[in-house]
C-alpha cells in the first residue's frame, strides 16, 4: 500500500478558530511537535466566509471581521512554525498497537497514518438542513442553507437568487439577509417557528430592522411550490402545539429559500473513534480537562458544543490546548472530579465534571427565555454562587466562572430560579 506513518506529540483536526487557538496554547505549554490538519485550502475555517464585523471584542478588545480575526491566529501559528497540512482530510481515528492513530487523506500525499500522544478534535459544526426540519412540498432548486449561500456570495462571487425568503432566525440567516439586501437582492421575510428570535438582538436591528425586513415569529413554512426552481412558499402562524393555523396564512413568491435553522457539531470522526457523545449538545462528553471518554482525545469549540461567538471558541480551545499539553508532558492527571448537573430551566452544562479545589468555567444554555432570574450554582450542601440575569434565552450561551470548586461537594448543580419578591 505504501502508506506512510508519522509520529507527533499532538495532532489537531481542523484549522478553524478552535484548532488554531488550541495549537498556540499547546506550544505555549511546551509541546513542540504539533501538527494541524485542515481539509480546506486555507486555514481559518468558517471565519473566512464570515466577512462581517463583530468578532474579537472579547479576545482582542476591538471589533474585527471574520477573516481579520482568523489572520491574527494564523500569523502567530506561522511565526511559531507550527505545521499545518492543508487540503488534507482526517478520515478515521483508530487504535493501532495501542497507539491512537489518525488516517489522513490528501491528493498530494495519499494516505498517511499519524500516531499522536494526544488528539484534539476541532472540526467545528455544520448547518441543519431541510431534512432536519421537514418542510412539506416539492424539491425544486433554490433551497439551500444560509451558510452555503454565504460561501457562494462571499468567497465565490455568486448570488444565490434575487427574491429571498429566510427560514429560521439564526445569526447566519440574519447576516445573509443584510448581505444580500446590500447586494441588491430582495429579502422578503424571515420566518421563525419559535416565539423568540434565534440570533443576537444586534443582528435583528442591523440586519432586519435597518432594511424593514419583516420577522414572523411563531410562523412556519407549510409548503414549498415550484417545479424546477422554487416559486413560492406558504407561511402560516402556528398554535401552541406547533400546528399551523389556516387563519392568517399567506404566500410569499421567491426564487430562493435560505435555511438558518441551527448548527450541529460535526462528530462523525469522533463516533468512528468511539468517543461518547452527549445527546443534548451533540458533542462529546468531556471532563474538567475537556478530555473525551477516550484518554488522550480532547474536544473543543463548535464540535464540542455550538458557541455563539468565535471569541469563546478560541478561549475554550486555549484551555483545551493547555490541558492536552499537561497530558502529553505529565500523563493523565490524578484528580478528584465532581459531576456538574443541570437544574431548573437549564438545557445543558459543560463540562460534565469539574476538578475539586480548582477554578472552573461552566458553559450552559437555558431551556426557555425568562426575565429577571437568578442563576444559582449549588452543591449538595450550599449555594456557592448566585447571579441575577435581566434576560436569558436559549440562543445565548452563558458562562459561569467558579473560583474554587468545593472539595467536599458531591456534585454541582446549575439552575435558574425566579427572583423572590
Amino acid at each position, binding site marked *: 500500500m505504501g502508506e506512510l506513518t508519522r509520529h507527533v506529540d499532538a495532532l489537531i483536526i481542523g484549522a478553524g478558530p478552535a484548532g488554531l487557538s488550541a495549537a498556540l496554547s499547546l506550544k505555549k505549554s511546551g509541546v513542540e511537535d504539533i501538527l494541524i490538519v485542515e481539509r480546506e*485550502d486555507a486555514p481559518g475555517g468558517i471565519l*473566512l466566509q464570515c*466577512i*462581517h*464585523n*463583530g468578532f474579537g*471584542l472579547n479576545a482582542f478588545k476591538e*471589533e*474585527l*471581521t*471574520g*477573516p*481579520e480575526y482568523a*489572520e491574527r491566529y494564523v500569523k502567530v501559528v506561522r511565526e511559531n512554525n507550527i505545521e499545518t497540512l492543508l487540503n488534507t482530510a482526517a478520515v478515521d481515528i483508530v487504535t493501532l498497537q495501542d497507539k491512537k492513530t489518525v488516517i489522513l487523506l490528501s491528493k498530494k500525499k495519499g494516505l498517511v497514518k499519524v500516531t499522536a500522544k494526544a488528539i484534539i478534535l476541532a472540526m467545528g459544526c455544520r448547518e441543519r438542513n431541510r431534512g432536519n426540519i421537514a418542510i412539506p412540498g416539492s424539491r425544486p432548486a433554490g433551497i439551500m442553507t444560509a451558510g452555503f449561500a454565504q460561501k457562494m456570495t*462571499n*468567497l*465565490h*462571487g455568486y448570488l444565490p437568487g434575487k427574491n429571498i425568503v429566510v427560514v429560521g432566525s439564526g445569526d447566519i440567516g440574519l447576516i445573509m439577509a443584510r*448581505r444580500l*439586501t*446590500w*447586494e441588491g437582492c430582495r429579502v422578503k421575510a424571515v420566518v421563525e417557528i419559535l416565539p423568540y428570535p434565534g440570533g*443576537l*438582538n*444586534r443582528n*435583528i*436591528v*442591523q440586519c432586519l430592522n*435597518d432594511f424593514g425586513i419583516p420577522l414572523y415569529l411563531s410562523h412556519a413554512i407549510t409548503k414549498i411550490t415550484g417545479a424546477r426552481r422554487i416559486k413560492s412558499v406558504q407561511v402560516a402562524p402556528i398554535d401552541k402545539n406547533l400546528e399551523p393555523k389556516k387563519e392568517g396564512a399567506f404566500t410569499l413568491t421567491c426564487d430562493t429559500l435560505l435555511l438558518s435553522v441551527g448548527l450541529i457539531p460535526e462528530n462523525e470522526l469522533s463516533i468512528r473513534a468511539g468517543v461518547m457523545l452527549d445527546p443534548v449538545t451533540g458533542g462529546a462528553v468531556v471532563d474538567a480537562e475537556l478530555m473525551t471518554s477516550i484518554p488522550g482525545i480532547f474536544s473543543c469549540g463548535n464540535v464540542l458544543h455550538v458557541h*455563539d*461567538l468565535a471569541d469563546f471558541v478560541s478561549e475554550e480551545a486555549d484551555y483545551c490546548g493547555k490541558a492536552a499539553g499537561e497530558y502529553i508532558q505529565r500523563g493523565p492527571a490524578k484528580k478528584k472530579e465532581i459531576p456538574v448537573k443541570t437544574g431548573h430551566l437549564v438545557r445543558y452544562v459543560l463540562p460534565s465534571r469539574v476538578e475539586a479545589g480548582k477554578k472552573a468555567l461552566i458553559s450552559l444554555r437555558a431551556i426557555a427565555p425568562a426575565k429577571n432570574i437568578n442563576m444559582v450554582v449549588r452543591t449538595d450542601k450550599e449555594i456557592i454562587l448566585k447571579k441575577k440575569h435581566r434576560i436569558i434565552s436559549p440562543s445565548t450561551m452563558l458562562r459561569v466562572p467558579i473560583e474554587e470548586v468545593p472539595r467536599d461537594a458531591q456534585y454541582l448543580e446549575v439552575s435558574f430560579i425566579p427572583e423572590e419578591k
Partner: protein
Amino acid sequence: MKKDLTCITCPMGCTLEVTYDKKHVISVTGNQCKRGETYAENEIFHPMRTVTTTVRISGADVPLLSVKTEKTVPKKLCSRVVKLASAVSVKAPVSAGDIVIKNLLDTGVNLVATRSLNRSS
C-alpha cells in the same frame, strides 16, 4: 421624547431607554458600558454603520477579497458603498489593512482589505 433602542456596538445587545429633545440626548439608561451612550446619540440623530463586502481580485488563488469601511459611515450610504466596491478590481498581493478605495463618497473613511492574499503559486 423617549425611544427604546437595542445597542449594536457589541454582542451584549443592551436595551437602551433614550430620552432626547430636538437636538440632544438627555439621558440613556439600560446600557452596561459607556459605548451605549455614544451609540444612542448617533442612532437618534445620524445613524452610522460599518459596511463589509467584497471586491474582485486578480492574480490570487481566490476570486474575491473581503473588505470593510475602516470606520462607520452614515447608514444611508451603505448600499452605495457596496455598489462602488462591486465595480472595483484589485491585484494580488494584498495585505489586510491595505486601502482599496480612498475617502469613500467624501466621508473621509477608507475601504480597506480584511484579508491578506498572496499571488497564486
